[in-house]
């Protein structure tokens, strides 16, 4: 059987769901970032597939931008993560709840 658009979309959806689950389950900040990366990249797959399907480049452009943004997010994210680790030397989510209510 040949791989059609739907398969890609299903794949991306699955990946996205995995990402969501990860986001919800992970208590480790780093892992959290990775989960978000999965989210974004699952979307990329879909974009690329769709743009191939339609035969126009917009989708791929979007994918590139997403990649770029993902990268810069990681930059900022890791920066924050490092500072946090310096101060508390852990990166456990449950420790950061000084503000509540």
């Amino acid at each position, binding site marked *: 059987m040949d791989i059609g658009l739907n398969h890609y979309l299903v794949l991306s959806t699955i990946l996205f769901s995995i990402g969501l689950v990860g986001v919800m389950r992970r208590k480790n900040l780093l892992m959290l970032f990775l989960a978000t990366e999965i*989210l974004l990249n699952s979307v990329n797959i879909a974009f690329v597939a769709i743009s191939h399907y339609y035969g126009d480049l917009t989708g791929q452009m*979007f994918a590139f931008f997403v990649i770029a*943004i993902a990268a810069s*997010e990681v930059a900022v994210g890791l920066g*924050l993560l490092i500072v*946090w680790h310096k101060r508390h030397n852990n990166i456990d989510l449950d420790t950061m709840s000084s503000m509540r209510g």
Partner: protein
Amino acid sequence: MLEPINISLESLNLTTLSPMIIPVIGALLILIIDIIKGGLDKTLYVMITILVLLLNIGAIVESVGVFTSDGTIMGVFDLVMVDGIAIIAQLIIVVVSLLFVPLALSHKRFHEFSYPEFFAIFLFMISGFEFMVTTDNLILIFVSLETASLALYTLIAMHNRDKSFEAAVKYFTLGALAAGFFSFGSMVFYALTGSIEINQISEVLAGNGYADIGFVLVGTAFLLAALGFKLSLVPFHAWAPDVYEGSSAAMAGYMSIVPRIAMFVVAMRMFEFLIHSGVVWLEVVLYIIIVLTMTIANIWALVQTDVKRMLAYSSISHTGFVMSAILIGTTQSNSALFIYWILFSFTNLGAFSMLWISRQKHLHKDQSSDHSFNKFSGMIQTSPTAAVIMALFMLSLAGLPPFAVFWGKIYMISSAVTGGYTVLAFIMALNSAIAGYYYLKLIVYMFMKEPEINKDGTAFVSNATLPLKTIIGFAVVGTIFSFIIVNPILEFVTALVYKSGY
């Protein structure tokens, strides 16, 4: 193999970019100055920023003229779309930023302001917001959204307190998730229509008569979640109070106004065509979300012990209030949205600035947080003027006439009435009744209790300098004499909104 496309430069009509470019250039300038000679005083950067923003305003005013003469201008491969709401939003963004910048010149030194990067990033963020409102291209929206957000996370983190880092991390993580939502949503629409420009999407959808409504709704759900996060609509609001508490009062005030107006514009572009083309689902969901946002935020604001956190919740509830404009989706309601936000930003910025000038370096022993209520008790006796001004802002936020927010409120409720949302109108009214309580709470503390912590009123103006006082004075004047400026604003806004077809 694509043929090379040749485009004439003027067809790009790059002038449309000018409002966004100016802050970028300014930011680069700052960085360069810092590279050439470091360790310069913050005042320099503040003033440069102010100048840049003034230029920016000039550019926007320019485009106002162009717009009023010959309608919406598309530029740069139709990526940039300068229409009425874009212009108004840009004006709000830049003016508020202009009001924000001097707050950096506080009496106590907070070292984020001593970094030139702070101002550079600030300017980048502004241009990001401006891009966000001047396009209907989902890519550009996405990119600019992220630019602005990432800059914002950094600015928050630069406040360099434990809480601020925590806030930044929370905001960032949730933001990343929201980004995922946004991209997925736009992906769905792209899949449906093969386009990522909102107006084309709407055409295509209208063309096939919303054949596969199910997927439209899915896409909308994702976008709604993403925008809802940025607008801090319940249930996507969870970050807001913490981030407000974590960041400096000034920054919190800024955050309560500028990012939201940008997002409002995006939401208008994204959702109103759906509503008008009869997507009942969106109406219902928005209705529920709005009511939830107004009510729950109010109810949680009731029980706060820290003024800044209370204001955070109150601004959430105000957002819900304003969001109803998008649900109603008439010209009146859309203009009401901007009018409300303009008037609201006066008062809210003023309120946060009042907190900012009362910011101490070190907390008093029986003071739970920076701006706990009991800190303000008996303020009328120790520093009456400050107390009266604070009370003024509170009353305005509570929507008491004749202060600024009142006019926005009546116009908004009236638009609900006119749009046929009777029940919603009453819910709005009753919510501002609930809100009355917690604004009153602060007034009670200030006017009716004996001084507890600050026996001498020094703490209330500990951070005050001339620039800060000027800003507050500006806010005060804007709040009290709003009834003079309401009419011109109303006419201006309505004209522009109407002309851009909302």
